């Protein structure tokens, strides 16, 4: 792999930029791998990356039915934060946030991590109590957040109307080290690093079946032929249930569309990320100047990557009160992704009823922020059979009632 650097750019400038290699190979699948990861989104690629980096397992294929990072990795609103209420959540999300800080250097790929600060607005008395509790929990967990009053909110984000009338801003939970990153670059950076370690990233290769023998996984059937493996990682978000049913087990997951939209680009007006969970809206400004807006999920199951139009209307209508200046903006694009939601709104990183199959799903509406931490933990789980970061997130917790209940900390927006 040719390292990217200022020197390399200068050198290439002298020869019309003809010397750049492709960032990753596009190989045909081999007959067998030690590990197959299904899903070349952020979580799948990060899992493969840490299998190689932390455990030296490099006979790995990452297979993807569409294109690299073309699912939820390329569809989210790129928010990174770790201000969760429960200890297991704070541990894995804070691990992820800290790995984001050095990701560009680690991968030699600019993921444009921007720790601009994330503010979660409290617009009801219930939220005030909830976020103060979260701030206290965070200080015990070693996650730096603070409760700020309405005047401080106005100071941090002057375009906000804090006076209501329907949903006045009563304060907020401020995480100064949260922020955003370039979502495509996260997938591309990991893919490049995986390819460089000798792993095969195979696109347009859809899994059509999972083969098992004596309760143990033996491989997968794909549109590019059968591939054998010793261990299989299912990291496919919205399609987790579909893949699990191929292996003969069910997951406590429902798949629903989540939408986002962006406005026309405008001059810089907001240098933080704001989440307003009462009204189900969150917003940041991209480097191009577009206002990036996300909302709540659709109410019913679907796999359409489209979503119902009235949810966008609800989101925008609610945000206009708090951000009056966006009322005159034109919206450029709208899109949807299929998110996998669990009963307690926390993810599943787990062994499964089939030996050798591991599942990483259920990140629901908030998976992007967790990518490096999820990959780190999932790789440890797959390599060693257990990981301190994934223990509480096993898929059998629902049977025992050991929920990781994040509804107070996360609400709908994640």
């Amino acid at each position: 792999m040719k390292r990217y650097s200022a020197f390399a750019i200068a050198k290439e400038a002298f020869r019309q930029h003809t010397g750049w290699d492709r960032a990753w190979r596009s190989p045909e699948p081999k007959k067998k791998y030690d590990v197959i990861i299904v899903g070349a989104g952020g979580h799948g690629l990060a899992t493969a990356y840490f299998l190689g980096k932390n455990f030296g397992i490099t006979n790995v294929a990452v297979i993807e039915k569409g294109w690299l990072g073309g699912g939820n990795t390329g569809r989210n609103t790129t928010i990174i934060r770790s201000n969760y209420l429960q200890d297991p959540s704070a541990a894995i999300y804070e691990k992820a946030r800290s790995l984001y800080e050095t990701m560009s250097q680690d991968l030699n790929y600019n993921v444009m991590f921007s720790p601009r600060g994330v503010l979660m607005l409290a617009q009801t008395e219930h939220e005030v109590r909830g976020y103060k509790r979260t701030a206290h929990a965070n200080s015990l967990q070693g996650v730096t957040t603070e409760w700020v009053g309405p005047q401080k909110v106005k100071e941090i984000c002057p375009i906000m109307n804090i006076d209501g009338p329907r949903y006045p801003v009563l304060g907020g939970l401020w995480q100064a080290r949260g922020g955003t990153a370039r979502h495509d670059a996260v997938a591309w950076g990991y893919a490049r690093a995986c390819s460089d370690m000798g792993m095969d990233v195979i696109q347009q290769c859809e899994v059509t079946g999972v083969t098992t023998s004596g309760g143990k996984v033996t491989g997968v059937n794909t549109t590019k032929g059968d591939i054998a493996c010793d261990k299989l990682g299912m990291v496919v978000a919205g399609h987790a249930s579909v893949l699990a049913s191929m292996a003969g087990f069910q997951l406590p997951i429902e798949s629903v569309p989540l939408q986002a939209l962006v406005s026309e680009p405008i001059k810089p007006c907001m240098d933080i990320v704001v989440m307003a969970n009462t009204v189900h809206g969150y917003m940041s400004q991209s480097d191009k100047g577009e206002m990036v807006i996300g909302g709540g999920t659709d109410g019913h199951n679907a796999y359409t990557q489209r979503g119902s139009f009235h949810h966008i209307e609800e989101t925008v209508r609610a945000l206009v009160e708090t951000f009056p200046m966006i009322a005159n903006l034109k919206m450029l694009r709208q899109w949807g992704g299929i998110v996998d939601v669990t009963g307690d709104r926390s993810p599943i990183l787990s062994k499964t009823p089939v030996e050798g199959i591991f599942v990483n799903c259920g990140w629901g509406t908030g998976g992007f922020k967790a990518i490096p931490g999820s990959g780190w933990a999932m790789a440890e789980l797959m390599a060693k059979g257990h990981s301190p970061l994934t223990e509480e997130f096993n898929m059998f917790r629902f049977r025992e009632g050991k929920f990781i209940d994040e509804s107070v900390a996360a609400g709908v927006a994640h």
Partner: protein
Amino acid sequence: MLILHCPNCGRDVDETDLHSGGEAHLKRFGPGSSDQEFEDYLFMRENPKGVHFERWHHSFGCGKWFLAARCTNTLEVFGTYSAQTLEPPKEILDRITAARPGWSWGALK
């Protein structure tokens, strides 16, 4: 916008007047059941990419529940029917089999 026919009040209803109640035809379990049965009932879901039987509540209308058969992949609606049934009526099953050859109710359950 999704439009469903409410069999209780006979109206064609916009999605905004409805509330989704998740998977239909779940078998309920009460005191004395095993952990596994409770888990299946409360959390495990078919979540199919295809034909889905689901509960709907006509919240901003007649206020009653009904069931619907809908494809989660194409958003095609195969029909709605009374919630007071243990399995979908034959006409709806026939309509689904006609549209999805090879599909069967038994294979799902």
